[in-house]
């Protein structure tokens, strides 16, 4: 298909996307569009440096390969390069999308589906401002490399988001409801989700009380636990952050005890949902990577480049947000595994604490933060009214050691309309979730 230059490793990723967006602002239609885009990302590697190009001219890919090749220094031994050795040479079986193809559903049908949820919002008079959107994306990716490797995969994601601002007696509160999945049918219970969220928000608006800053036992919902796993730990499992960094390698050595023995965290690109990545953007097939097992550091996330540098195996985590960017090490669906007790037992062990149900945002470096939205006091094991919290934070290492209970059922969540940001690449669809997680002595502001 392409003539790859001698003495160099090269690959070409062709991406064709159909994206739909229907968007309303306070009941007024603002966007209704179907967008078809196509483009290619070309990489050439000479054993020392990478040369990249992104283009929307699919008929000029060969020209771009040849142009990049002129910048590079060919090597007779390129095939023996340890990075090149990690690149796939297999012709994978095309991974087509087997479900109901939303490209065949009319825009009017999608608009009607979204609009069917509006009465629940307009009926609530305290909602002074709201937005609603339906979006879906069908992505077809092809990857060809100079080792003969090929992969073709298709995936689809759709979802609904409704954001609402509640106002009563001079107090405001902003919350939202969202549901995402691979097919329309997975959004079927959105009405119940929306109605519950409106009810919770009204309770919060009317009855929430400010939490006094301090240390609390905190129970994280599957959503909050997922954000915690993603922000506090997942990013530090991305091996590109460790390249050439002896201190970080030492700190993050495999086998290091991080938490209790019932603590397990995984990343799994084969999970359906917004993190689904059957082949990554280097052609490596998805796999489940155990990051923490029995409380000990057990693995990390790799591209072919980082795997080669660290003498480990590629894990299918080389991902790019679009054809405009090179693949870098990213998470897929990251989550706590099931733990050591039931949800009821977990709550029953809290005399005076807090429950974080939904969040506004989270961030993670040496100190992670989560800004809760809907949060609640826990008294004697029971939910005891809504609580206003600015932010919870802590150091990653310390906080894992403070986990003392994890519930026994895992809930994985998908998202639309946002995603993970790393460096210049945002947003990348990811999934996360988990069971309920209890942490002692967490710093709350």
């Amino acid at each position, binding site marked *: 298909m392409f003539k790859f230059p001698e003495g160099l490793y090269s690959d070409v990723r062709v991406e064709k996307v159909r994206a739909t967006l229907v968007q309303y602002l306070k009941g007024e239609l603002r966007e209704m569009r179907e*967008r078809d885009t196509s483009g290619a990302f070309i990489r050439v590697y000479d054993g020392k440096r990478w040369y*990249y*190009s992104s283009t929307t001219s699919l008929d000029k890919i060969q020209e771009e390969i040849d142009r990049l090749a002129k910048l590079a220094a060919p090597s007779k031994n390129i095939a023996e390069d340890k990075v090149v050795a990690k690149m796939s040479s297999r012709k994978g079986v095309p991974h087509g999308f087997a479900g109901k193809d939303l490209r065949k559903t009319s825009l009017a049908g999608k608009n009607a589906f979204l609009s069917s949820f509006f009465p629940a919002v307009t009926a609530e008079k305290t909602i002074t401002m709201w937005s609603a959107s339906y979006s879906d994306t069908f992505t077809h990716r092809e990857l060809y490399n100079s080792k003969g490797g090929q992969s073709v995969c298709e995936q689809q994601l759709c979802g609904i988001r409704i954001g609402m601002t509640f106002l009563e007696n001079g107090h405001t509160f902003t919350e939202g409801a969202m549901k995402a999945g691979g097919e329309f049918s997975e959004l079927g219970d959105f009405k119940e989700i929306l109605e519950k969220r409106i009810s919770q928000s009204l309770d919060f608006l009317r009855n929430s009380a400010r939490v006094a800053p301090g240390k609390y036992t905190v129970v994280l919902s599957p959503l909050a636990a997922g954000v915690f796993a993603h922000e506090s730990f997942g990013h*530090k499992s991305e091996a590109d952050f460790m390249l050439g960094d002896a201190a970080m390698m030492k700190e993050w050595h495999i086998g290091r005890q991080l938490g209790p023995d019932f603590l397990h965290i995984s990343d799994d690109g084969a999970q359906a949902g917004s993190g689904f990545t059957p082949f990554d953007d280097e052609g490596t097939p998805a796999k489940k990577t155990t990051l923490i097992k029995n409380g000990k550091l057990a693995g990390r996330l790799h591209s072919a480049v980082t795997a080669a540098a660290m003498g480990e195996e590629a894990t299918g985590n080389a991902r790019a947000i679009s054809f*405009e960017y090179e693949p870098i090490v990213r998470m897929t669906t990251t989550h706590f595994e099931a733990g050591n007790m039931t949800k009821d037992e977990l709550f029953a062990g809290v005399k005076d604490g807090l429950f974080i149900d939904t969040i*506004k*945002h989270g961030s993670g470096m040496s100190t992670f933060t989560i800004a809760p939205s809907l949060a609640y006091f826990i008294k004697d094991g029971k939910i005891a009214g809504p609580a206003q919290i600015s932010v919870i*934070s802590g150091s990653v290492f310390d906080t894992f050691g403070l986990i003392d209970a994890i519930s026994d059922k895992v809930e994985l969540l998908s998202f639309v309309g946002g995603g993970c940001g790393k460096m210049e690449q945002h947003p990348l669809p990811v999934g996360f979730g988990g069971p309920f997680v209890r942490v002692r002595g967490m710093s709350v502001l």
Partner: protein
Amino acid sequence: MTKETYTLIKDEVSVKISASVPESLRNKRIKRTGVRVYKDGCLGISGYMGEEGAGDALKRAEAALAYKIAYPGQPSGNLVRSLTIGGKPFTPEALDAEVAAILSALRKDFPQFVLSSPSVKTGTYTEALKNDAGLDLLSAITLHEFVFLYKMNSSSSIMDGWFAYAGQEYNRQAFLAHAGNILGAHLREVSLPAEGKLPVFFDDSEFLVKNIFARELGGMTFGSGGSLFSGKTGQKLFNEGFTLYSGRQEEHLPFFDAEGVCAEGFKYIENGVLRAPFADKKTAAKFNFTPSGTADAAYDGTPTAGLGGMKIQAQAKTVKEMQGGAPAIFVSMASGGDFTSEGGFGTPAQVAFLMKDGKLVGRLPELQLTSHVNEMYGKDFLGVSSDKIMPLANNRWLGFMMNVRKM
């Protein structure tokens, strides 16, 4: 029917750095064109990428009129203006050599650090908006954006801090001097003089401390009564020295917005008095606001009010004069904080420096900062300095008195 095209061209070269050496060189040329048609108070839009597809996109845009996306008022017209800012971007070879020279100098002077960068980039970013109502606007901005992340060799963190520059003029010595100020200060650990209310400075482009205005001054929220500031137009809510305005060109944005509105200097808050929210034409028409000239749009999307280029008016004092000889704090990295729905503010400051007489003295421990929007921009507002953080860029020092304590 009025037909309009909105063209965005990104022509960019970037170098990625890993473990203090260049890892890759990337070229990007992406052209996107939106085609809009206005008819009977409605807007139809479609678009295409690359050079081909204008005819089909026009047909799709005309068909999209059937969706009845309301667009009250008229598209902009009768204005022809073209503005080119900046010289030529670096060639790939020149950028590669410049990055190598910077890294060589920093490795020599600061061997204690590992440097990385998602992209040191240079490019020309062109936007054009044309229609058959006589609108023909073109902006071509050449911009260099050098972002460097650093960490100590001994650190187990992903990053310990950063330094950056964005601007049209570039000078290696000035950039290295700025990097040296940050890296040198990072090496000198100092303690917080005292907990309590202290002068705290940010880069004035720091969104974290301004995001409440992005949230509460959105025209739809403001006009619907759901904003903290709804119904308070004309009231003096903040410090006399606080003026919040649209400074698109200082922020390297085109002189026109996605609707062709040119409103450089549009004031949201003037000398502490609330003047207006930000609004696109549609929102402005709905609530009788003035369009703020800050509408954003995807190339094939409906223009929607944004907050591009939200700036705070600089004052006459330098940062040294603002400090008045007292120790102050410069927050270089604060991630994860926010304003509550009632206006309370709290954030960790992961990287902060002690300042004296406008100079960075040394690195402070991680801090916790708290305040409230009414205090930050009221009695505790110190203002924006007349002098820049580094001479090549537009960023200045933005100060508040804030409650500070160690994490």
